[in-house]
């Protein structure tokens, strides 16, 4: 049980710097997810916390103690790897108890800890099998069991679900969340999947090119993305982004397409400023198939290029000013391609970014 803090942490391989001075404070018992596209430095950051990568600069502290120069075994952490990293020549029982064996605990203590972990994760019947005889989900559970037997200060997860199929992934996601509720421990979790990040995290850390772009709760990063990168990375489908110019209370996308400037932004933009107008599919719905919501709206009539029925709702693809945009139809009816639908855009939920910097203007 401990907090983790990173102070100006950098990592370079030779002349190439891949993590540029990260600052992050993770509270005791907090579930923090590092998310970002591949190559953004999230795994490297996690491995620096684990001690599997040297820290090139800055400081990592666990429970208030600087751990830069400690080997992994002295950091009291445990880690779950993407490929499970089970010991192939040991049974599940031996895999679970291995760290305690190394720590020279007594046999009864090891047996007790293994049984506890096995019952938390439902591994009871698998204890005498070897990893080769387990399915992917079972291996993943063993890997998690191995992590919890030691009651570490911090759990580190390195893309633990990316080798599982979609259904199992959803199921294991729930199990990880339950596990966190049962064994309250600080968790740092790395993934490239924004859905995992949204569903699991107390706080999400979004990284890009070796920098932290935004830190916040799932709702904060969803509703208040600091820039266009976060806006398009978080949320599914990604936010619709249209570039335009502010003019007289409107955003001119093209001479034919203008959108009213949402009131929250009036006074925050200059006349003639280049801006990127953003809105999510949830805020663009055909009339009669939308949430009845008060607030300012703008009307758009859109030619549907593709409809994706999902059952409870239908995703609509259309084009606006040459850019593909997505909307959503609630209580759906069949929609054919080429059909023109009158849609309304909920302006209160729209975003405006500075096109030059990509930063939010809110």
């Amino acid at each position, binding site marked *: 049980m401990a907090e983790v803090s990173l102070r100006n942490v950098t990592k370079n391989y030779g002349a190439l710097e891949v993590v540029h001075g990260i600052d992050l404070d993770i509270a005791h018992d907090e579930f923090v997810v590092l998310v970002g596209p591949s190559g953004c430095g999230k795994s490297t950051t996690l491995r620096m916390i684990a001690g599997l990568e040297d820290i090139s600069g800055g400081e990592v502290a666990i429970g208030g103690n600087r751990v830069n120069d400690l080997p992994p075994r002295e950091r009291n952490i445990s880690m779950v790897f993407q*490929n499970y990293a089970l010991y192939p*020549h040991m049974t599940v029982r031996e895999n679970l108890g291995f760290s305690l064996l190394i720590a020279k605990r007594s046999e009864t203590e090891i047996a007790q800890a293994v049984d506890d972990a096995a019952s938390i994760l439902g591994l009871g019947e698998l204890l005498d099998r070897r990893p080769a005889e387990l399915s992917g989900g079972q291996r993943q559970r063993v890997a998690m069991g191995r992590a919890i037997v030691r009651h570490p200060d911090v759990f580190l997860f390195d893309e633990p679900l990316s080798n599982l199929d979609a259904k199992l992934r959803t199921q294991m996601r729930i199990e990880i969340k339950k596990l966190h509720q049962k064994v309250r421990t600080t968790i740092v979790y790395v993934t490239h999947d924004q859905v995992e990040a949204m569903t699991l995290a107390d706080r999400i850390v979004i990284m890009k090119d070796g920098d932290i772009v935004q830190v916040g709760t799932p709702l904060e990063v969803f509703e208040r993305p600091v820039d266009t990168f976060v806006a398009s990375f978080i949320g599914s489908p990604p936010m619709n982004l249209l570039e335009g110019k502010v003019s007289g209370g409107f955003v001119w996308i093209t001479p034919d397409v203008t959108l009213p400037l949402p009131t929250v932004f009036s006074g925050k933009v200059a006349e003639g400023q280049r801006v990127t107008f953003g809105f999510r599919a949830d805020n663009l719905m055909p009339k009669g198939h939308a949430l009845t919501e008060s607030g300012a709206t703008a009307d758009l009539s859109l030619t549907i290029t593709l409809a994706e029925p999902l059952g409870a709702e239908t995703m609509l693809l259309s084009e606006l000013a040459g850019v593909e945009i997505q909307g959503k139809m609630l209580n759906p009816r069949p929609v054919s391609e080429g059909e023109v639908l009158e849609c309304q855009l909920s302006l209160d939920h729209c975003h405006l970014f500075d096109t030059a910097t990509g930063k939010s203007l809110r």
Partner: protein
Amino acid sequence: MLRRRPPDWLTLLMPTIIVIAIIVLIPLIFSFYSSFTPYKLTRPSTLWRWVGTANYERILSDLNFWAAFGRTILFLTIALNLELLFGLGIALMVNKVTWGQRTLRTVLMFPMMFSPILVGFQFKFIFNDNVGLVNNALQSLGITDVALPWLVDSKLALFSIAFAEIWMSTSIFAILILAGLFAMPRDPLEAAKVDGCTPWQSFRHITLPFLMPFIFIAMTIRSLDVARAYDIVQIMTGGGPARRTELVWTLMARTGYVDARMGIANAMGYVSILLSIFFTIYFFRKLSAARAELGL
């Protein structure tokens, strides 16, 4: 007209059967038969005199044979274990090398490229008590002022031969173990680090179990190799002096070709083949067990 034709499978297998019969089966039967005769190369007619198990009885009570047999096992044990140890050490070190590893791997194979005969001559010179490099060096450095009889003293001679054998063949272990290290997944090692292992514990509990199948393959190959060690011994000491370095195969060759007593030499061959069979089965069992343990 109805002619009986052999079944197709027999027709198709015939070339193989013929080749195997000529190369393996006939010599095998012939040698086995001759081990029950007092066959002497110089007197072919002896081939037709059946003496039953007389040759075998004679061998089993022959101290010289058993001395050679025991010496072969001793030699095998020493050479194999040291080769494993050195091979493992070299493989672990080469695995750490990041620059020029390919070149190093090629260099590692050099000793294997020499003919054992040449290696024998080379080490015969190196260990020569008068003009050899070893004695020369020892005397120049003032470590000793007498000429050590490397190839004459029974213990030193066996050591010298083992040295040559190890020099030539350690790389087989090194290469095979290195292949094992390359095939090894990195994740379990990292997991072990996080689980609290010191580097030695990681090696002992994770790396070594993974390498065992590779080690047993190398052991099987090399045990067969060493059990028929002949060329290096023949060149360096000729099994002498006074049988002090006699191994099973030098004894057999001497009996068969020098003394021309082929019948008894063949009998020796059949007894000592048991040795090879034993080692093969032993290591193969170990290999299967190690593979089963890894879930392969």
